[in-house]
């Protein structure tokens, strides 16, 4: 097959995307496909039209690649593509929208409050910070509403540090959310097609009592797959993750990040185009299921063709 691998792009996750793309391209070539690696540039449409790939493999993360922009374009061009459809991408990329959808479907996600830069700048929203903190409690996690990775995330333990954390979050997006910090085990459930893969657990390597940010940093955690969980707990996590995947209308694949708190699993976010690098979680989970990377890539192509 002729496969266009879309990678790079202009988001802050360009680096990760290039690594995902390189691995996918190498694998596709090894499988005998004809690979055309495309970065996002002014000649993207003309190159896609000239090459007419049988399928586009989206290895883009973050803005434009994961938010439906490129997916819409591919639909218009009539080129089948991997991963979730346009609307699902938009729902996942916008963490706030995703949380509303989850809540509406009766799925657990930590309490939150959203702020836009405009509301703070122009409508006096800063005077509601006290109320926001009351609602979500401390510590809380401030994060940009639409970044796929851990960029721009800060944990706030004292009210006075909230402006700093918001400045950070709003450096990555024009909206930020303040989310209740839920203590618990950090799990990640990848979904391929309609089945969930073994659960990956991230165990922070730095164990300082309040060094929450360490767990969001690259190299700040060890990953265990499959996570060691009692059977019924694992089952509950799988069920919640699959329900989140369907509630957001994902297809192809996605990765659901979950905190397993005492009261049960809480969904943090769903990634529509999860990382596919050598150290990414979805490929690890697939492998634990007995699906090596080349089969994973092949399966994603099949799902793309089925969806078109």
């Amino acid at each position: 097959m002729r496969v266009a691998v879309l990678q790079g792009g202009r988001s802050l996750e360009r680096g990760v995307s290039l690594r995902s793309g390189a691995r996918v391209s190498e694998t596709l070539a090894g499988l005998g496909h004809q690979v055309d690696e495309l970065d996002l540039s002014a000649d993207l449409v003309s190159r896609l039209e000239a090459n007419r790939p049988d399928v586009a493999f989206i290895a883009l993360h973050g803005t434009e690649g994961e938010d439906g922009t490129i997916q819409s374009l591919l639909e218009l061009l009539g080129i089948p593509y991997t991963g979730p459809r346009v609307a699902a991408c938009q729902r996942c990329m916008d963490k706030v929208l995703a949380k509303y959808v989850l809540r509406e479907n009766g799925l657990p996600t930590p309490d939150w409050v959203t702020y836009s830069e405009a509301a703070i700048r122009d409508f006096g929203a800063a005077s509601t910070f006290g109320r926001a903190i009351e609602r979500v409690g401390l510590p809380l996690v401030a994060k940009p509403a639409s970044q796929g990775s851990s960029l721009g995330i800060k944990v706030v333990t004292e009210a006075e540090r909230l402006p700093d954390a918001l400045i950070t979050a709003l450096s990555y997006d024009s909206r930020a959310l303040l989310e209740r910090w839920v203590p618990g085990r950090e799990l990640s459930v990848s979904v391929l097609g309609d089945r969930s893969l073994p659960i990956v657990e991230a165990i922070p390597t730095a164990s300082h009592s309040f060094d929450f940010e360490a767990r969001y940093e690259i190299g700040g955690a060890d990953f265990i797959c499959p996570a060691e969980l009692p059977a019924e707990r694992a089952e509950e996590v799988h069920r919640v993750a699959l329900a989140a995947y369907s509630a957001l209308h994902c297809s192809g694949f996605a990765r659901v990040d979950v905190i397993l708190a005492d009261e049960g699993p809480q969904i943090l976010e769903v990634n529509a185009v999860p990382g596919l690098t050598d150290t990414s979680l979805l490929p690890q989970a697939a492998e634990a299921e007995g699906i090596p990377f080349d089969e994973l890539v092949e399966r994603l192509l099949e799902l793309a063709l089925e969806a078109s």
Partner: protein
Amino acid sequence: MAAQPAPRRPGTRSKDLERYASLFAKRTRVMRSSAMRDMMEITARPEVISLAGGLPDTSTFPPEAFAAEMDRITRTSLAEALQYGPTEGVDLVREQIAQVMAAEGMDVDPREVTVTTGGQQAIDLITKVLIDPGDVLICDAPTYPGAIPTFCSYEADIRQIECDGDGMRIDLLEETIASLAAEGRKPKFIYSIPTFQNPGGVTLSLERRRRLVELAAEHEILVVEDNPYGLLRFEGDPLPTLHSLDGGNYVVYLGTFSKILSAGLRIGWVVSPRPIREKIVLGKGASDLCTSTLTQDFAGHYFRDGNWREYVDDLAGIYRTRRDTMIAAMSEHFPHGASWNKPTGGLFVWATMPDVLNTEDLLAKALLKGVAFVPGTAAYVDGRGASSMRLNFSGVKEDEIIEGIRRIGAVAREQLQLYETMTNTNEMRLPGRPRGEDESGEGSR
């Protein structure tokens, strides 16, 4: 019959990663990719103005001079140029290095010179031969960001000494040496860029230079003087190098052609006392046998026969104009409370934003607006520098410098305004009026 190649395996698997992980040396644990590094990938895109690099402008090198050298090599020394060469470097290049150093007032015997593959290899080799894991080394704060991964890969215990407008604070250096001595420890060496420092742009004062070499002799500590930019002076009189003040007893000198001819030739050098030199040559042999003979042939003849002084003076003129452009743009666009120095040479301006701003956050926003810089934290090992940034003016054309600084200024103002709105402090609301430069050459708004 030729053996069948082993079938190509499609991609790596996480099992492979585990297998490889157990093979890695412990020191690779400090060699990590970071989110910040990933983010900087955007600077490779053509629409992004990068003030993050440290590139010389090589676009003005006369093509006919290049062609003439390559033609001469083709006619007269092709076989040698394509061959291995001596580990310590080609004699002609070592002679010319001595000449280049003489232009900065140093008297060096060409035999004292070891040619390296760029200045970076010189830093690597000196660390390799001097540092055991856990050994203390001292450097400037902020220091050259590219030296930090090298020091870390040899597992050095890095202590950074604060710089002010006159370079490294020697009083603090003395305190650090004393407190180390109290623990029964002694730094293996002090690494510094005393002239037009990267990233700070500052120059170590004469008085501090004298005191530094005195201290080195008194405590028998080596000083590694890295001097890539000394000849790129825009104004004022040159100061004596540490090497010339000390006579090469405790000062190990690192030089490079990267900023005065070409970074692509990859030619740097070390001048060091004999026992150290012997180890460096052994280390270099183990590392790459020799620096490219072809580029050494090119550089040796260029420095012997070409108008290198004129070319360096031209570069300094170009960079001076760019520095002025950058400083003027900063005065116009940076927010009130930002400050910066006006370097009298080199490649970089170091700017510090009001301390409520974090330049890593600012960088994220700036990258999305198509401009990059190096956040200050890259120049420290301990998280300092969070409000500072390194800005390069040598490798960027004037119109891009202005546009880049304008964009950085705009995002910084936006962030400050937002912060102020949130904290209800009104003092930062209005843009400041330009102030004149004060006597120390510092600018601010």
